[in-house]
């Protein structure tokens, strides 16, 4: 499988995909100390995004969320890479300041939690 998208922040990563069908609010919705999703009723509630290729349609919530991505990185709990349908400001800025590879405009319906994938964000490509 080869999916093509757009570079948001460059870099390379290989790992297991963690896929959500919902938006993620990093501020208030993710524990910055552990990377565990804490938002009540979220389809990833209780799961950790640390060390995963995190796949979700788009970010939501407070712009402070960008700093949460940076805090996760400093705490070694950041995702390896982020893959979105449409990256918005909070995720984009978070990936730039935390230096997390990020691509968007990817067909997310092809991806499932547990898939082993490799992200080449320099080229905007995901291989599975």
């Amino acid at each position, binding site marked *: 499988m080869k999916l093509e998208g757009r570079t*948001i*922040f460059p870099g390379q990563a290989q790992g297991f995909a963690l896929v959500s069908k919902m938006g993620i609010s990093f*501020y208030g919705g993710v524990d*910055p100390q552990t990377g565990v999703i804490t938002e009540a009723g979220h389809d990833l509630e209780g799961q950790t995004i640390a060390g995963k290729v995190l796949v979700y349609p788009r970010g939501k919530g407070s*712009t*402070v969320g*960008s*700093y949460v991505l*940076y*805090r996760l*990185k*400093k*705490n070694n709990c950041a995702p390896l890479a982020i893959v979105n349908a449409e*990256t*918005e*400001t*909070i995720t*984009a*800025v978070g990936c*730039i*300041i935390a230096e997390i590879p990020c691509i*968007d405009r990817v067909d997310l319906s092809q991806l499932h939690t547990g898939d082993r994938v490799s992200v080449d964000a320099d080229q905007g490509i995901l291989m599975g």
Partner: protein
Amino acid sequence: MHLTPEENAILAGSSGPAAQKAMRILETLGRIYGAKHMLPITSVQISGVSYANLGEAGLEWLADMAEGGGKAQVLTTLNPAGMDVENYRALGIDEAFAENQRRVLSAFEKMGVITTCSCTPYLFGNLPRFGEHIAWAESSAVCFANSVLGARTNREGGPSALAAALTGRTPAYNYHLDQNRQPTVHVRVDASLSGTHDFGALGKAIGDRLQSLKLAQLVPLITGITEASLETLKSFCASIATYGGVALFHIPGLTPEANAFEIPPADLVIHQRELDQARADLLQTTAEEVDFVSLGCPHLSLKEIQRIAQLIEGKRVTKEFWITTSRPVKGMADRMGYTQIIEAAGAKFATDTCCVVAPIEGRFIAMATDSAKACYYAYAKNHFKTRLLSFDQVIREATQ
């Protein structure tokens, strides 16, 4: 996206690592949102100041940007901090938090950011004129700048606002462009409005309805409002931004761009009963249960502080009562003796901060205020019940 030779040089590191990182943020946002070029800006307002929100990592990032030679290129002011910088002890803020908050402010200061710590920069010198391109964070101030002043800004976050400050630029997209400032929905208001609490409730009533329409671009043209003051518009902007995510609205006869547009038939009408419902939604408890009273969301104007002094003189407050405002406005209140009158009654000034960003989660049971925005955060973030009252009624109940 076209970058000038100077912008490309900054991106390559010619102005140091902080400016390089800043330009990278702006270039990426420009690319995502289809900007064709950068715009020079004249003013910045930065959010993300409270240590409670930034945490150690956020502080570290700001310190790295300061260390990397970041310097504000235009007038840049700062949102409220997590505490009153001078009077935090009286407000129950501990020393460890205070020390961390001071480290945040000193990183900003090092970058030439004016540490105003207020959500109302337009009340004391950061007042962009009509048509000016700016880069502001703080949703209530963004809405005020776009709608009431007719300046042009997107809804920036903390890092993108800082990036704009350090480069003097922002990518040209969304609210910077004429076509995106056109109204997309006509809201007719058929209700009577008497003060800041009513305008706040109206912001909620409209905001809730707009959210349910799921429009891609939310620029309401609002008719049926014939009178408004600085204070009621300030309250309305805060509320419609909080509940509706609105960054720009137009009101014919009141806001400067409104007359440029045709008025289409109304898409939705806010009747008296909907305004009453919005007020009732925020009136969740009785006067007896209230143990916290807060005025100043957004930060109070001098006129509002003068009014508090008039009503409170010679009385005694019976609950924890915070008055949140900016340091410059507080300075004028000091000079006029209002501060003394208010403090003699037992109310406390919480300058530089506010009840949205101060670390007060769980400290109180129920809050009385005139601000619909403050109600939202009191409930969602701090788990307080809320009691939305008129400005005068808040003071009356606090001194009963």
